[in-house]
């Protein structure tokens, strides 16, 4: 029973990170109908930038208090990623808005390769150990353990998601975003500056990605230039699972995927009599993705999407 609970807790932690990243995919998809393939790399950049800031401040000997270091690192990561998201849209997607659908997808792959290589040149190929700003103290919860860092991840993600929902539903910007997602042409006629809204979407999505990057690297204690790719892929799966273009869907999808993965990895050994082990964890995300697309292409919460020809 405690193993079961443990896997549930691990799944929730993992799932909240997926949900944060998935929101970025789903927001862009909802507005542009485009998969921002480079989004996972933005997460990676966020993690590595925050790591460098932490190392710099801790090594500077200025004696800056730990919470301030954390806040500065997070701020640095968020601002770098916002700039990155803005530029990616400007350079790689905006000129191709009227091009065939394959075109922006291919430039997105190009951006992804570029970001990865540049990150590798800056931070090297090695795995960086992320210094623990908050010493992880384990708490027991009904036979399972959860660290305070993990609790923090869940709480921060929940707060950010609530904030995003507020932004989208109760502000002028949010209303413009929803209008653009509904119909860009009509929204433009109603006086919405479409280009500004699209830029804003990318910027917000990238900020979420930066936070996710910081959270995930502090959870595992590891960051490296290749971490964004698989994470991005899984977050995308989460977005599809929940119904792409749908914000609550991305959150539900993220949490669900986290649970499926951690429960799957925990029990696959028992289920297959030891034939398949926990290193098949990554397979689950892809299997879920394929199953969802086959049986319910609109996702769990998605509405019926008309075929875009």
């Amino acid at each position, binding site marked *: 029973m405690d193993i079961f609970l443990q896997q549930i807790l691990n799944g929730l932690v993992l799932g909240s990170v997926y949900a944060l990243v998935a929101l970025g995919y789903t927001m862009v998809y909802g507005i542009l109908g485009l998969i921002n393939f480079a989004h996972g790399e933005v997460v990676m950049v966020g993690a590595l930038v925050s790591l460098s800031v932490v190392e710099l401040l801790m090594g500077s000997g200025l004696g800056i208090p730990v919470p301030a270091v954390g806040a500065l690192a997070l701020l640095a990561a968020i601002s770098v990623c916002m700039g990155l998201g803005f530029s990616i849209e400007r350079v790689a997607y905006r000129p191709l808005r009227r091009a065939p659908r394959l075109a922006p997808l291919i430039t997105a792959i*190009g951006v992804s390769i570029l970001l990865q*290589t540049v990150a590798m040149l800056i931070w090297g190929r090695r795995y960086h150990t992320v210094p623990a700003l908050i010493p992880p103290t384990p708490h027991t919860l009904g036979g399972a353990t959860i660290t305070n860092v993990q609790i923090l991840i869940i709480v921060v993600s929940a707060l950010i998601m609530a904030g995003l929902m507020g932004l989208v539903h109760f502000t002028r910007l949010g209303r413009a975003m929803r209008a653009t997602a509904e119909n860009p042409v009509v929204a433009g006629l109603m006086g919405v500056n479409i280009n500004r809204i699209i830029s804003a979407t990318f910027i917000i999505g990238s900020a979420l990605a930066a936070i996710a990057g910081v959270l995930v690297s502090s959870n595992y204690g590891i960051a490296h230039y290749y971490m964004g790719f698989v994470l991005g*892929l899984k977050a995308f799966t989460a977005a599809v699972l929940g119904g792409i273009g749908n914000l609550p869907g991305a959150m539900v999808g993220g949490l669900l995927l986290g649970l499926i993965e951690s429960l799957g990895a925990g029990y696959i050994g028992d289920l297959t009599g030891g034939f*398949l082990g926990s290193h098949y964890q990554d397979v689950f995300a892809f299997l879920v993705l394929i199953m969802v697309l086959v049986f319910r292409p609109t996702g769990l919460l998605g509405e019926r999407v008309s075929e875009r*020809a």
Partner: protein
Amino acid sequence: MRADWQRLLYWFRRDARGRWIGLALIVVALAVLPFVLEASVGRTWVRIIDLALLYAMLALGLNIVVGFAGLLDLGYIAFYAVGAYAYALLASPHFGVHLPWWVLLPVGAVLAAFFGVVLGAPTLRLRGDYLAIVTLGFGEIIRIFLNNLNAPINITNGPQGVNLIDTIAIDGVSFAKTNTLLGIPFPGTHLHYYLFLLIAVLVMFVCMRLEDSRIGRAWVAIREDEIAAQAMGINTRNIKLLAFAMGATFGGVAGGLFSSLQGFVSPESFAVWESITVLCMVVLGGMGHVAGVVLGALLLATLPELLRHTAAPLQQQLLGKVILDPESLRMLLFGLALILVMLLRPAGLWPSPTRRRELTSTRVSGTV
């Protein structure tokens, strides 16, 4: 002087005799190429050309799926892996089975085609970007299985890969060692070159014939507008599956040949970036244009090697140290090339004439 050249060129292209002579010249040039390369820049370059020919086959296979049928496949390298492992497992000491190559290449091809259909069947209803992600996932699944199927029963030997794979031998002439024919020594790399060239030309021929066939036109129709294609009486399901199977077949054959050339396969050779490299070749060369795709493959397979041999020494000389290792430089250039080509020359370096017309004429209706 220039007029002479033009007249000669015209003669080669138009005159019946000129055509034959031109063709003969090309054949002779291709036949002596490995010897010229070995004499001038060393045997490694013959090997590089061997690999470039394999990439050309892969690019042609992917071109059927992406270029003709317009289905973006980001896991194409999985079929290459299937072909390579089929060959490796059945012609190596790993299982102690040593089947001849003429059995294994078709086996690899059929197996790859089967996987192509397995991948295609559930994804038929998906379009564009969804399909891209699913195929990407599929490619990763294959790689993860290859990496982990060494326990509890050792099937693929895991990350260590399969070693000591038999080299192709035709009529007792093994490609593993140097053979002397008519007094000329032919090293194994040269023999592989001739075989690969033959198969690549064959694949090219098949692709060109396919393009103009009923099936090829059906693929293009699906690419342009699936619903309209369906309305015209095309069985889109079967035709799309055929595209997947066909593309996968070429990948499987190329995989088998790769095993023979390398004598060693491991899951590392089939990472996602390999799929993307092949996609780059198709996109840069000119999606849907057979000659363009081959050009793209040859360029992208040989240029990085050229960089490897020039970029590092050049940096050493100019800056005193190597700042960009060739591998990173290659990836940087790949990424940049993908973006720039899409922005500036969306039809590729050498687009097919019809495609160029489509893309330059003003679009009446974009994607909304």
